[in-house]
């Protein structure tokens, strides 16, 4: 696989424009266990940011806190400079945050079209063009529009989960491990589509185990370890950083 980066987004991350999403000193607890110990992170408009880390490092927790599914005990979640922490996730959807939850979570016993219609639930008057847009992005879904989501393959379900989130017209799309349990070829397809979605103007924050894929797509990356950010840099830098290569890319990296 080529490591060629088609983006010049690295410069955007360091620009002075107010960040679309900013996490400040986030402390999140599960009972007595402190899952996030002061996570700081920012995502600028139009960027793709990858969140890397081992199992249990706090990647999903960070994402869930950003999408309102978890409430931080202290710290701030800022959307365009405005505090949004404590707003429940179903309200936060209205602020233009789309969340593709871990494990896809499509409505298994609804058809593909019904799933997408549910994605547009927050919009009073859904635009029929939105669904066409999703079907252009994912032709596989268009072929199966009447099929029940539970009968789709894992990759198709992931596509549907992303498509469903897109139906809510998010400015910022949070993706929790879009490559989980999928064949390499499908992962490649999904990342190609994510790039396309980003080029159409949606900002992406994604959590990934598949560090090499994620960093090839991303402009910038953060590395989490035991609930804190230990590294953050341009994706191209992280991709060649010896510590990242050793820990997350393994020996197989080019």
């Amino acid at each position, binding site marked *: 696989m080529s490591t060629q980066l088609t983006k010049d987004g690295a410069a955007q991350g360091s620009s002075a424009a107010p960040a679309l999403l900013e996490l400040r000193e986030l402390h999140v607890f599960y009972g007595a266990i402190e899952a996030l110990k002061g996570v700081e992170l920012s995502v600028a408009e139009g960027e793709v940011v990858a969140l890397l880390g081992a199992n249990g490092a706090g990647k999903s927790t960070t994402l869930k806190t950003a*999408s309102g*599914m978890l409430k931080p005990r202290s710290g701030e979640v800022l959307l365009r400079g405005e505090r949004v922490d404590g707003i*429940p*996730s*179903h*309200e936060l*959807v*209205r602020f233009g945050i789309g*969340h593709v*939850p871990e494990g896809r*979570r*499509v*409505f*298994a*016993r*609804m058809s593909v079209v*019904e799933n997408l*219609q*549910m*994605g547009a*639930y*927050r919009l009073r008057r859904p635009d029929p063009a939105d669904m066409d847009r999703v079907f252009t992005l994912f032709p596989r879904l268009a072929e199966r529009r009447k099929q*029940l989501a*539970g*009968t789709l393959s894992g990759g198709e379900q992931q596509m549907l989960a992303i498509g*469903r*989130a897109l139906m*809510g017209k998010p400015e910022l799309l949070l993706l929790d491990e879009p490559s989980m349990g999928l064949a390499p070829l499908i992962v490649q397809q999904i990342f190609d589509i994510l790039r396309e979605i980003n080029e159409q103007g949606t900002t992406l924050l994604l959590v990934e185990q598949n560090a090499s894929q994620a960093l090839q797509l991303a402009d910038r990356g953060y590395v989490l370890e035991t609930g804190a950010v230990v590294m953050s840099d341009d994706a191209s830098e992280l991709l060649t950083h010896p510590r990242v290569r050793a820990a997350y890319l393994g020996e197989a990296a080019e």
Partner: protein
Amino acid sequence: MSTVRDSKGRERVPSAASLRRVRWYQEARWKRLVALLVLAVVGAQVTGVQGTSTDIFYALGENFTGTGIWIWLALCVGVWVIREFLSEPVNRGWVASRDRVSQPVARVRGVWQADPRLRYGGGALLLVVLILLPLWLSTYWQQVMVDQIAIFVLLAIGLNVVIGWAGMLDLGFVAFFAIGAYSAAFWTGSLPVEPPVVLNTFLVIPIAIVTCLLAGVLLGAPTLRLRGDYLAIVTLGFHEIVYLAARNWTDFTGGSRGARMSERFVIDLGFWRFEWGLDPKPYYWLLLGFIVVIIFLFLRLEHSRVGRAWTAIREDEVAAASTGVNTVRMKLLAFAIGASTSGVAGVVYASKVAFISPENFVLLLSILVLAYVIFGGMGSIPGVLAGAALLIWLPEYLRDSVDPQDRFMYLGALLVVMMIYRPQGLLPSKRRQRELRLAEEKA
């Protein structure tokens, strides 16, 4: 157990081949024969003479030696022979006759579905038949139509919102029915305590709706974060609280002595006055009116944003929330709507039977209503209507043809058979049918 010995008589682990071997009595054909023979014996016992209190084995002996068992055995063996040895021609005949029928049926269905006016016409015709129905029935059946079928249809429609659409298992549904009935008793001045004003029963209906809504929210708000089994237990507890309050709060409810209703439904326009009296027919028409209005409202609701949100919640609450559904509010709404429907039924019931006591609101009723909903087809209004009507009608009908004490046994058997062979219910909703098919494909 199944030790296999080799030629020298040593014990060995049984070979795969021996484990795979099917003995004659393990064949499906012979298993079916045994099952049918058991059915014959049970059938002979059930339909034969009744036992006596002095000689409990009297019936057993009589039914094993009487002619009944031979008829049953002949029937069952006959069925078995046809099933095992004559299935080819029977199937061929069945397929042929089905093919002959299927084309006209498909054509009729096509016409039916093509023209919505025809469907509305059909609905109107059905409504007219339902309006005229009590005129052809005896007073006894009129009473059954009102006290049981119409009231429980209303309850089942309400429970369908909670279980069929929002997917929450509510075992305490009849508590709201009781609250509705006691509201009616209170506001008409039929309880030991004096209400602030004595109201016409019609005016109690909105009050009962609001009371049940509040009770539903009161119960729901702290508990609806629970799921499935846990919620079921909580609703069970809620029912017990309401039931015991009705029984023991004697100063307010009259306790187990019950309360006699002092008012009935009355329309008084000064120049014209109509009172719902002992005749069940006006009650029937009143309830029919309520049912039609509620069904109309609920059908609108089912296909609205709210209905879709309920379906999403039933599927996956986390995903529903991430698409912007306020899950807590929607669940509360389903609960409250179900509760208030139940409350309306309670008011009419109290007014109709004119006497209520805590024993009218036992837990069994909650479970029966649940059975009606599941039997008819969860989430499908036509199914729920048919399920409730059929399951209430059956024991009443059997009253004349079998020993009255055995009636509910037949009901139970019907439920068992139904759940095995048609778990989606009598007239399932399209969605439910697909859901079950999907579940089977996964299994």
